[in-house]
């Protein structure tokens, strides 16, 4: 509901109320008054009503003018506000941009500073790690040398023992082999002796000698009671 309409409606209601109040004020006495007075009163009422209507129309016109004025004012104000708003917005935007740039520059600087600090710290850390690693390596090598020396000594001892055991076993093997070979040689000597005697006596022993041996064996058998 627009403002002019509201004003018009209000004016109309006011006018009607005025009329009604006047009508009520003058109603009672209307019976008692004569027609002239009634007519006068009616005329007055009409005049009042006409005035009211004119005032209402004036008011309505004023209201319309006022509403138009208000509308144009509001439009002007809104345009002005828009411009102001735009201006303020642009200023705020510029401020924001400036702030943002400043912030960004500040952050960049801080970040650069942070990187520089980080670089310094990382270099320090690297140096520390390098020193630590070097120290650990040196310790490790020292311990390794000690362990290796111990291990080599132990291995040497074990190897020496193993070699000595092997030598002992080899000596025993050699002795056993020597005994076996000597036994074989002894057997060979006996076999050679038997072979030699067999070849020689086959030619050298006469039949009589052989028969003497046979008779001697038979006598022994008789003495031993082999033949029963």
């Amino acid at each position, binding site marked *: 509901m627009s403002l002019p309409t509201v004003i018009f409606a209000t004016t109309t209601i006011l006018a009607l109320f005025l009329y009604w109040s006047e009508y009520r004020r003058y109603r009672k006495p209307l019976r008692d008054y004569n027609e002239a007075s009634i007519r006068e009163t009616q005329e007055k009422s009409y005049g009042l009503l006409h005035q009211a209507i004119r005032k209402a129309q004036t008011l309505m016109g004023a209201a319309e003018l006022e509403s138009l004025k208000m509308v144009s004012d509001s439009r002007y104000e809104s345009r002005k506000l828009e411009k102001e708003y735009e201006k303020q917005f642009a200023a705020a935007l510029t401020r924001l941009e400036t702030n943002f740039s400043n912030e960004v520059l500040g952050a960049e600087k801080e970040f650069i500073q942070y990187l520089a600090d980080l670089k310094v710290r990382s270099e320090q850390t690297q140096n520390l790690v390098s020193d630590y690693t070097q120290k650990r390596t040196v310790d490790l090598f020292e311990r390794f040398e000690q362990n290796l020396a111990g291990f080599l000594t132990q291995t040497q001892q074990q190897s020496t023992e193993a070699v000595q055991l092997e030598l002992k076993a080899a000596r025993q093997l050699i002795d056993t082999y020597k005994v076996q070979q000597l036994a074989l040689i*002894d057997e060979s000597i006996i076999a050679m002796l038997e072979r030699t005697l067999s070849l020689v006596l086959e030619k050298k022993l006469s039949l009589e000698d052989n028969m003497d041996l046979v008779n001697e064996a038979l006598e022994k*058998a008789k003495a031993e009671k082999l033949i029963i």
Partner: protein
Amino acid sequence: MEDTTLNNLLQTILETSFTQMQALARLRILKETLMAKLFTASLAPPINLTPSDKQWLDGLDVKFLDQFNHKNFSTLIELSEKEIKKMPTLTVVLPFELPEKEARETTNRLRNDYGKTFLIETKYDRSLIAGPALIWKGVYKDYSLRQKIEEKKEKLLQMFQSSKPQGPNPKELKNE
């Protein structure tokens, strides 16, 4: 009667046979001769006889041969063969071939000691070197030179070792 004939037969064979193989060979020769005489009426001797076998066969008395007939011939031969195989036999292992004469003399010597039906069996083993080995009823007894060497082996080896020529002393070699 047949016992007498059997004894005569065995005696005839053993008189001139000194080894079991010889006795069985002579019995076989007699068997072939009797078979020829009894079944073919021929007195032709078997072929492939040694001179001594031939001599023995020729030396047989005709009366001895007449004791045999168709009925008793095979029985007597079989019984004789069994008896010969049952006779005590001494196996004499020799490193040489025993001639017949020496075999006869040896057997006669043994028959003097152990009975008329004693026989020997000869085997050849050159490894005995000299002297015999005797086998009687499965018992082996070695009287040979080989056995003596075996018994005296340690002593012989000691003799050999003591008679070895001394080699260079290793210590002297080392000092040099």
